[in-house]
């Protein structure tokens, strides 16, 4: 094999693998990504039932009701609109009324969001970024508790 042929076979292999990778990424991006919406966007966009997505907001106060087995119903709100959510299974540790939550699933034909994943915020400092952004946009963002606590950006002791 000449030097040139060797080089070509190398470049050919590289291009082949690269093309494979690009093809895989493009097809996966088309099929397996999930969009995030706030409840308001969900209502306003008239999203078709069955489209997988995530919605995020706060668990509405007084909306949690438990059914048979591990079924649970609650509403996710961004202050303007709320969306009823149905879920079957164990809820995360920090799932509480008035706390941030992200649910993944799809709307059914009755307008209930059937969730198969519920992600609660992880501790009091953490709020899913998408939720925080949505709340900020809707004007319901509570100031960071760091500042509220008054541990005002402390100064170094001289």
């Amino acid at each position, binding site marked *: 094999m000449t030097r040139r042929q060797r080089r070509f076979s190398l470049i050919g292999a590289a291009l082949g693998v690269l093309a*494979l990778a690009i093809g895989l990424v493009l097809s*996966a991006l088309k099929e397996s990504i*999930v969009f995030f919406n706030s409840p308001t966007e969900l209502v306003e966009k008239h999203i078709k039932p069955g489209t997988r997505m995530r919605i995020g907001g706060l668990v509405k106060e007084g909306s949690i009701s438990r059914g048979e087995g*591990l079924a649970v119903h609650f509403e996710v709100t961004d202050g303007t609109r709320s969306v009823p959510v149905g879920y079957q299974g164990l809820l995360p*540790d920090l799932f509480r009324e008035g706390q941030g939550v992200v649910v993944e699933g799809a709307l059914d034909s009755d307008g209930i969001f059937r969730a198969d994943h519920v992600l609660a915020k992880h*501790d009091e*400092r953490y709020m*899913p*970024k998408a939720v925080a952004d949505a709340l900020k946009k809707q004007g319901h963002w509570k100031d960071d508790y760091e500042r509220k606590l008054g541990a005002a950006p402390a100064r170094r002791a001289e």
Partner: protein
Amino acid sequence: MIAEFGHYALVLAFALALVQASVPLAGARKNDPVLMAVAGPTALAQFCFIAFAFAALIICYVRSDFSVLNVFENSHSAKPLVYKLTGVWGNHEGSMLLWVFILSIFGALVALFGANLPARLKANVLAVQSSIAAAFLLFILITSNPFLRIPEAPFEGRDLNPVLQDPGLAIHPPLLYVGYVGLSISFSFAIAALIDERIDAAWARWVRPWTLLAWIFLTLGIAMGSYWAYYTLGWGGWWFWDPVENASLVPWLAATALLHSALVMEKRDALKVWTILLALLTFSFSLIGTFLVRSGVLTSVHAFANDPTRGVFILGILALFIGGSLALFALRAPMLKQGGLFAPVSREGALVLNNLFLVSACATVFIGTVYPLALEALTGDKISVGAPFFNATFAPLFIPLLVVVPFGPLLAWKRGDLLGVAQRLVGAAAVAVIAVAVVFAMEGGGPILVPFAIGLALYVMAGALTEIVERTGLLRVPLATAFARAEGLPRSAWGAAFAHFGLGITLLGVIGETQWSLERIAELRPGQSISIRRYDLQFDGMATRQGPNYRDLAAHFTVRRHGDFVGVMEPAKRNFPSRATATTQTALMTRGVSQLYLSLGDANPDGSLAVRLYYKPLVLLIWFGALVMAIGGVLSLSDRRLRVGAPKPARSKAALSPAE
């Protein structure tokens, strides 16, 4: 006062870092040995000052000095000592300090053990290393100072995030950081080579052990993080394709590619430009990982930071080092001489293929991680790229790689005999075929991919053994001869075999866990039981236990297999009054390499308890395989030790024969 001393030590370390980043560089340009010699002592001094600062922060934590803001926010006087210590890096400021501390350790190691490096190379390497340290020290001093005081000290701290109050915090971040930051050495060597426009096989021989060391720690760190997530989060997953996890996987894939391409460069003097580029990219991915995790652009389990100034600062560091290094590469790479030739079918060829697949897989993970951020920044659309994306891209790229893995070590350098190698792998292939048939028969239907995946895993493992069997002549020569040959085999051959075998083990665990896991969710009252596979778990009742800074509400389960008592499992809800939060303490029962996994949901008002029970077959193999890979790394490293820094093959006959 100790906090102020720590702060002052950091400032001094920063000043030293500036000296170390400039003086030796100038010395290397002017060929002035005095200026170049500045690098070594300053690297050691810089290490001492940063170590002092780190110790100072530890002392603040141990003393529960709540006048220090960082201690107040992340510690509590009732917290057990081990979490007071680990809490030091369980927050943004402390973990950045750990980051530069490890960076300075590596700098000091090069200064100490680099006595036989050419003076110019050593000076340049230490200067580049120190410029990284300077940038991050400045970052800490300006945006993330852990030694800030509160004017009026509170009585009690706010405690460490309960999720982090776990032995995992003692192990996972330090291991991961040693891996992350250790990659800076190969970066510094690459930049030094570009500055000097000199690169040869000896360079690869110096770089490889450092990369290997970092790779070993990165492997262990990722595995440890995965196991921690598995037992602590309570939903039985061990890998979530979370951006923070990907941020560590991407450098790992790149470092794995670098290890292999540096091998080609060391042995055959080929792939020089590519190896340099890979060394630059690998650490760049580490930096990007640091940026993703530390800047707060992702708010996820690991994100402690929420301050945009930090993000911008790290972005600046990224632009400087990645942009700068790639610009230097573009400028200087054409001047590097190309080395040895090789046929496409050869060990070099196989390693090139390895690099192609690893780098492509690395790129897909990187794209999947960064794309949502880029899209949100550009269009405002929020998307989540989760497991389906990575399964659809990462897996198809990894499968061909796994098929090729056993061929690599069996092929000869320069020009290999594909048919001959294929013949030698017949045994491995036979193992795979039998496995496919057996699994297929056992499954009786189900996804056809599963038996093939199991076959592939066993093929990789058998292929790794094939090399050792071939080289020792096991089965062909008397056992004693084979043992003697096995002892004579270079440690690096054992290292490769172990690493590849470990890869197969991990794969086996991944397939077993993802395909054959069983899940049961139920609501139980005391006396009721739940069964999974051949196990019956009876819920006996609840009990509360008081811990040092928490209270456990533990459920007691008796586990029986076919009616025989096996043991008890006690999952719990752990309440931390200091933070008014609860965590789930899962209970694990190990059966061979499989596990029973039990976590609690909420207790209902009517006295029943929601539980989640998993049977996880082969799950321990996932981490066991990583451990075997790391052992392979250590074996390979112990081989390198004979040659580190010795550009000429200086091993004497005496050194080759085992000591008697």
